[in-house]
């Protein structure tokens, strides 16, 4: 515990309570207090993880980290505490019965040939094994299979990513051997399964000879950039979010006046506060002619989370947060809510299913890549 308090800078806490005051779930009314967890850690209270299931209620959105005057890494602390909880066999009541965790663990075990590229067609140019740029597709195809009732096609974002790369003259590697990046298992505390996935994925990219990994998924890019670092030692592989790559090559992008619409942007917590990428997606969206951009009341560093981060929490407070967020999106007068993470889409779409206020808060959602692809010449 002492080491943990040092590593996460919890010792610097001076008990001001800003974290709890700012925490989206506390504000929504949950009996949840980051401050109490930090205090318990500093006091070396080992019972914290066994006593307090609310450890799994944290959205890991990092809003408290960004407000903390003492720079305590609460999100990091939660991740480490969850690992301890997992080792002590204490686990969350997962939404969807833990089905997604089962799928991820099966991927970690491996042994089957996944059918994850069933969305590829002849119009999309990709190569399965070797190339300069590796397109990390993420698990959108699984989300679409899991949530048919939302009528979402998050895989369109992935398809659009290929289209945009093709238009830049890139034939990306899209591998059928790709597996879940392990993001959710890591944040559920299952480090062993995460490491199995990380090793497989890093090796897969190394074999492809690619020097650059590009992904349209905010969680994948966070995991690659931060959590895969120990596995990438000595490797020259660079990792970028698709929007960063597109920004680098903005001069080569040929975009026509797409369907002119007013859009707003939901900052995924992984892309924004975890990695500090606020600028790139906005710049890329502004490259698209005919698009009018309107910020939501809370955006950028203040951006609100979709409240579903790691498939470990979903309750009335999460719904409250989502509804509030969608109301903000609607208040901008935008037609389309653009995001850069498929999970934001899944969770906000779920809130829109509310039979009472669903209509009030419904708004079309698209991925950044989709918006760019729709304006390609």
């Amino acid at each position, binding site marked *: 515990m002492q080491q943990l308090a040092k590593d996460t800078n919890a010792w610097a806490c001076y008990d001001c309570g800003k974290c709890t005051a700012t925490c989206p779930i506390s504000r929504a009314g949950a009996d949840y207090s980051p401050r109490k967890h930090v205090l318990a850690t500093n006091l070396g209270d080992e019972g914290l993880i066994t006593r307090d299931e609310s450890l799994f209620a944290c959205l890991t959105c990092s809003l408290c980290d960004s407000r903390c005057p003492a720079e305590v890494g609460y999100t990091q602390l939660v991740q480490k505490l969850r690992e301890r909880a997992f080792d002590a066999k204490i686990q969350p009541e997962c939404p969807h*019965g*833990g089905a997604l965790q089962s799928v991820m663990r099966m991927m970690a075990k491996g042994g089957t040939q996944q059918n994850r590229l069933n969305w590829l067609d002849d119009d999309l140019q990709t190569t399965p094994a070797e190339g300069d740029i590796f397109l990390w597709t993420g698990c959108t195809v699984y989300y679409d299979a*899991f949530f048919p009732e939302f009528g979402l096609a998050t895989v369109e974002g992935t398809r659009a990513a290929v289209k945009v790369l093709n238009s830049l003259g890139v034939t990306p590697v899209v591998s059928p051997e790709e597996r879940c990046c392990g993001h959710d298992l890591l944040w559920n505390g299952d480090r062993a399964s995460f490491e199995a996935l990380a090793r497989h994925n890093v090796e897969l990219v190394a074999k492809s000879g690619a020097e650059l990994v590009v992904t349209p998924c905010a969680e994948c890019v966070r995991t690659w950039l931060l959590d895969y670092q120990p596995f990438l030692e000595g490797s020259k592989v660079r990792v970028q979010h698709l929007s960063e790559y597109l920004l680098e090559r903005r001069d080569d992008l040929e975009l026509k006046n797409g369907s002119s619409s007013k859009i707003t942007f939901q900052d995924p917590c992984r892309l924004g506060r975890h990695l500090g990428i606020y600028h790139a997606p906005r710049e890329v969206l502004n490259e698209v002619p005919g698009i009018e951009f309107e910020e939501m009341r809370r955006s950028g560093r203040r951006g609100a989370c979709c409240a579903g981060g790691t498939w470990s929490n979903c309750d009335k407070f999460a719904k409250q947060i989502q509804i509030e967020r969608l109301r903000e999106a609607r208040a901008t007068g935008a037609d389309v809510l653009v995001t850069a993470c498929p999970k934001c889409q899944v969770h906000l779409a779920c809130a829109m299913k509310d039979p009472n206020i669903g209509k009030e808060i419904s708004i079309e959602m698209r991925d950044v890549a989709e918006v760019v692809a729709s304006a390609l010449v």
Partner: protein
Amino acid sequence: MTQQVSSSGATSTAPTGAFDPRIVVFACNWCSYAGADTAGVSRIQHQPHFRMIRVMCSGRIQPAFVLRSFEKGADGVLVSGCHFGDCHYIFGNERAVEQFEKTMNVVKLLGIEEGRLRLEWISAAEGGRFAEVINEFTDQVRALGPSPFAVEDAIDEIEVPETGGCMNADKGEGKGEGVGEGEH
């Protein structure tokens, strides 16, 4: 009850030395489970390589149940319920179909053979049909061979009583000897 069905109905139609699959059968309380009972009471012979899990309604069988079975090493999973129109809860089996289709799509994405998962309607009177389905499905799974996720200790893992949580956890609350409290 599962034990009775398995032991009284056991035959060895399988060639000796052949692979015996581990099959998980989900059965609804009102039709399929009673159908299995009928098969047992009527001494209808069938293969014994399945473990049965009774649920109140096939509509309860969500993707997580089936996927967890595969994750823990099941070679095949059979989902069974009342015939349409017979559901004790009127439309539970329609929900079961929705859930099953969703599950099947995920199973296909994962690369698990479609033949390892099956949906069947078996009524309480259809003991013979229960035996038939079990024999047919067992042979089908046997032909597919062991599941890629099968592990040596799968049986031990499956038989651990589960108390909820997404990772087979014993929360240790209110039990005195809970895992959580014991270790700290």
